[in-house]
């Protein structure tokens, strides 16, 4: 390959007619035929897209679209491919394939514009409108290089698919599509090389790959006339494949490019929120949740077509890891299958009609009840999906149907019944909501109406003997730091977080309404809660019920108090012997992005960063899956109320990971995690301590609670 210096290139661009003829070597009749075939292909493409969009439009309205935000997301998540996490090989392959494809698509479009413009202006083929000079030089170099990216990406995917390991789908159609794309790419270079010989294109080095193929043909003895004949034949071959690809695209998995872009543009990005249901709608229709595909939103239906069955969600799913019958990928793909066989809302998908309809209902049939109940709504699937598909959202919508249908029994049903009856899933008297605070002098809102921070205790710490110690520790810390706080006591009810994620939307709405009224009555503005589920519900669910507050997790408030020096200096001996590890709760780390504040609290407990560094700081061990990549303890999404033995629980893999860290203590910052991890660790490694960060901080700064013999003593209720 001759090397062309930038200076030479500039010179050449300025002095020579640097260009190539569009449709060079293609006679008029062939051009005409090409346009006819192209029109047919584009027609097939447009019809294919239209058919899918028609299906999506049978769904419920997705709500208004913020176009500025949508544009930003398209740039960030689609054009810049900003959502890949993990799987470096496949992610790189996709970035290469996508960028190559996208640049070549733009390149081809520009050539088409040039050709049409030239035609309209009546210019001869030898006098292009803009496809010449420096523009042409850059164009050739860029498209030629991105063609390489495209081919490398396709080849990487093909190799990966043929090797076969991994949870991604491996259908013959997928392999066929990759082979087609590779053949299109390769013939493109071959046609380019032949054209360089035939048309004696100036400065052929601008297309390095084309130049190499040209050199190979020359070396093989192909002369200018031979190149012309070969070029004509292969040009048609290349064109036919490319047009065939365009026609096939909407009927193949590549529909994901369009469906995915739409989904990424308009989806709800906040993991901690769910779609509300209006009571009026339920009363009118008598329906709740998703019974049929048309009960999903349009965005959700489009997201079904966005799924490429890559299986990243399945790899991240803690329920799948624990051997539960749930694979988020399969949930989506089963629904896609139903969409193709049954159509949506009476609108046929226009399939071959060969596939038989099982006739099963969606919830409890196509997707089994046990599958739907296995989800902890940890959000890992929705968070990891590069296309922004949320299997979790579909699962909760299908659960709503099950709840309305009376398809829940046993302990989780009892928990909901109790929540409905008395306002907490334990079913214990509302009057006993302050029993945890015995001897602590905790002010009620009515006794301290001028409070600054409302401490939202939550049901677990109100009633569970183990979790009560979190609340006692938080109160000791708030009192030591002179924080002006109050609690609602018997006026507080379950936020309804569990109920909502289990699909009991009406129960959630009833509880939210009552709590919003109570909080309004006591003019709550700033709320602190130690339970990430309460935090998430108050933050993300309650605005839908008309409650807007500043809601912080106790880790945020406690790390503030530590940083501001509001707590006593750490004693020289720390409360924890040995090393500490930290388990991120899903609803704190993933849904609300709070990951560093709990670590700041732990650093203080471990004697790191403070004035006690000399005294020998304790090591803090990070778990392999930490922060946003954390793995669920198994207690979310209502799983807390299912009667699983620890060995059957969703979080058992996480417990093994925690035990495997070798730490002496695992710190958590969620009462559900405290109980689930606590049970799991007790079965695996009883010597390991499971403690909330507030308990550790209270002991490190204030010492053990007076009257308590050790950290494991429950408060005298």
């Amino acid at each position: 390959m001759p090397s062309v210096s930038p200076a030479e290139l500039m010179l050449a661009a300025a002095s020579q007619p640097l260009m190539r003829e569009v449709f060079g070597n293609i006679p008029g009749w062939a051009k005409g035929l090409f346009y006819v075939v192209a029109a047919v292909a584009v027609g097939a493409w447009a019809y294919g897209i239209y058919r899918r969009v028609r299906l999506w439009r049978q769904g419920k309205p997705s709500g208004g679209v913020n176009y500025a935000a949508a544009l930003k997301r398209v740039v960030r998540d689609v054009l810049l491919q900003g959502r890949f996490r993990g799987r470096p090989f496949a992610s790189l392959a996709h970035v290469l394939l996508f960028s190559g494809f996208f640049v070549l698509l733009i390149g081809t479009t520009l050539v088409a514009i040039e050709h049409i413009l030239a035609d309209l202006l009546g210019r001869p083929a030898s006098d292009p409108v803009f496809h010449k000079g420096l523009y042409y030089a850059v164009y050739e170099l860029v498209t030629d290089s991105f063609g390489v990216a495209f081919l490398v990406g396709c080849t990487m995917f093909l190799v990966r698919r043929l090797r076969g390991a991994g949870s991604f789908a491996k259908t013959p159609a997928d392999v066929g599509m990759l082979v087609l794309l590779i053949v299109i790419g390769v013939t493109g270079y071959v046609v380019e090389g032949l054209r360089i010989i035939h048309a004696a294109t100036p400065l052929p080095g601008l297309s390095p790959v084309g130049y190499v193929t040209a050199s190979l043909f020359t070396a093989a003895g192909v002369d200018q006339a031979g190149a012309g004949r070969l070029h004509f034949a292969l040009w048609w071959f290349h064109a036919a494949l490319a047009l065939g690809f365009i026609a096939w695209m909407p009927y193949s998995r590549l529909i994901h490019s369009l469906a995915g872009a739409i989904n990424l543009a308009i989806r709800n990005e906040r993991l901690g929120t769910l779609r509300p249901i209006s009571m009026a709608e339920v009363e009118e229709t008598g329906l709740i949740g998703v019974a049929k595909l048309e009960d999903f939103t349009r965005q959700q239906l489009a997201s079904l077509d966005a799924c490429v069955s890559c299986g990243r969600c399945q790899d991240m799913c803690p329920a799948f890891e624990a051997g539960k019958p749930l694979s988020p990928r399969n949930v989506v793909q089963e629904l896609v299958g139903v969409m193709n066989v049954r159509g949506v809302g009476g609108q046929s998908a226009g399939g071959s009609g060969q596939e038989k309809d099982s006739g099963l209902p969606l919830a409890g049939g196509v997707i089994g009840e046990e599958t739907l109940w296995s989800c902890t709504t940890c959000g890992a699937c929705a968070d990891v999906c590069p296309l922004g598909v949320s299997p979790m959202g579909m699962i909760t919508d299908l659960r709503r149907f099950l709840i309305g249908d009376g398809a829940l029994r046993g302990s989780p049903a009892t928990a909901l019944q109790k929540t409905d009856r008395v306002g907490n899933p334990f079913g214990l008297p509302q009057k006993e909501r302050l029993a945890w605070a015995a001897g602590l002098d905790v002010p009620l809102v009515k006794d301290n109406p001028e409070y600054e921070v409302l401490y939202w205790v939550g049901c677990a710490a109100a009633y569970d003997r183990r979790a009560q110690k979190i609340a006692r520790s938080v109160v000791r810390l708030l009192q030591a730091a002179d924080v002006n706080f109050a609690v609602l006591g018997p006026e507080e009810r379950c936020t309804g977080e569990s109920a909502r994620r289990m699909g009991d939307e009406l129960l959630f709405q009833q509880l939210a309404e009552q709590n919003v009224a109570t909080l309004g009555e006591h003019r709550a503005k700033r709320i602190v809660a130690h339970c990430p589920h309460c935090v998430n519900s108050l933050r993300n669910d309650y605005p839908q019920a008309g409650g807007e507050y500043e809601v912080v997790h106790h880790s945020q408030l406690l790390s503030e108090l530590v940083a501001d020096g509001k707590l006593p200096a750490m004693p020289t001996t720390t409360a924890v012997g040995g090393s500490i590890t930290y388990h991120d709760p899903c609803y704190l780390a993933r849904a609300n992005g709070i990951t560093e504040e709990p670590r700041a609290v732990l650093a203080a407990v471990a004697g790191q960063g403070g004035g006690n560094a000399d005294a020998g700081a304790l090591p803090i061990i990070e778990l392999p899956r930490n922060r946003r990549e954390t793995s669920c303890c198994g207690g979310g999404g209502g799983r807390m109320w299912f009667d699983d033995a620890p060995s059957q629980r969703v979080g058992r893999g996480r417990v093994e990971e925690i035990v495997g860290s070798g730490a002496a203590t695992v710190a958590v910052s969620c009462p559900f995690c405290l109980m689930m991890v606590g049970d799991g660790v007790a079965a695996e490694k009883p010597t390991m301590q499971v403690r909330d960060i507030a308990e550790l901080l209270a002991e490190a700064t204030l010492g053990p609670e007076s009257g308590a013999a050790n950290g494991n003593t429950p408060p005298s209720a």
Partner: protein
Amino acid sequence: MKILVPTKRVPDTDQKITATADGSGVASDHLPFVVNPFDAIALEEGVRIVEKLGDDSEVVAVGIGEADYVQQLRTALAMGSTRAICIECDQPLDPWNVARLLKEIVLREQPDLVLMGKQAVDDDANQTGQFLAALLDWPQATFASRVELLAGEIRVDRETDHGIETLRLPLPAVVTTDLRLSEPRYASMAGIMKAKKKPLDMIPLAELGVALEPRVEVLRYHSSETVRRGERLRSVDELVERLRQDVGAQA
């Protein structure tokens, strides 16, 4: 097939239930009420039988009480009952009179099977089903842990202190349910809403033409205090030692 399921509205046993100051009854202010859990099991089993038959069979839930009873009957409808009947009655009833009222409903409805809880968790009387079978002169099977519908008859596994007793009864019959028979489904607010269109008939007590004959007189209710005693021991050995002492003290 028609299955009649009589139910009772009882206080939620999770709550602290206390007697009123004058001892005349249970302090029911703010006390949540539920369908007697054994009756919920009967409802679930009845609905399952009907679902399995898949024909025009029906489950009819029955309640006796004041207007607020409707809430529990709506729950029964949400659980899958076809319709519900409420006998409006503002007087306290003993099992004998409950059975006499139910007999009238049975004569009106002509069910093939009466399925009901073996007892109510408030007074634990365990008499109504037996009285009803006697009044109707129907065969009865109490404490059912499994029922199987055969042609014109029903096979019932009964839980007894000595094991499972299996009976075969010609229909119509009265069967009372034990704990293990079935696991009741959750009647959510959404389910209750969906079931609102199902018929719920109110029948005034007078319409049944039954003169009440009270046989049981409640003299007084009083609350008993349970004292929780707990002690933290230092070691397993200490625990074993203490248990030995306690057993020795009781022997």
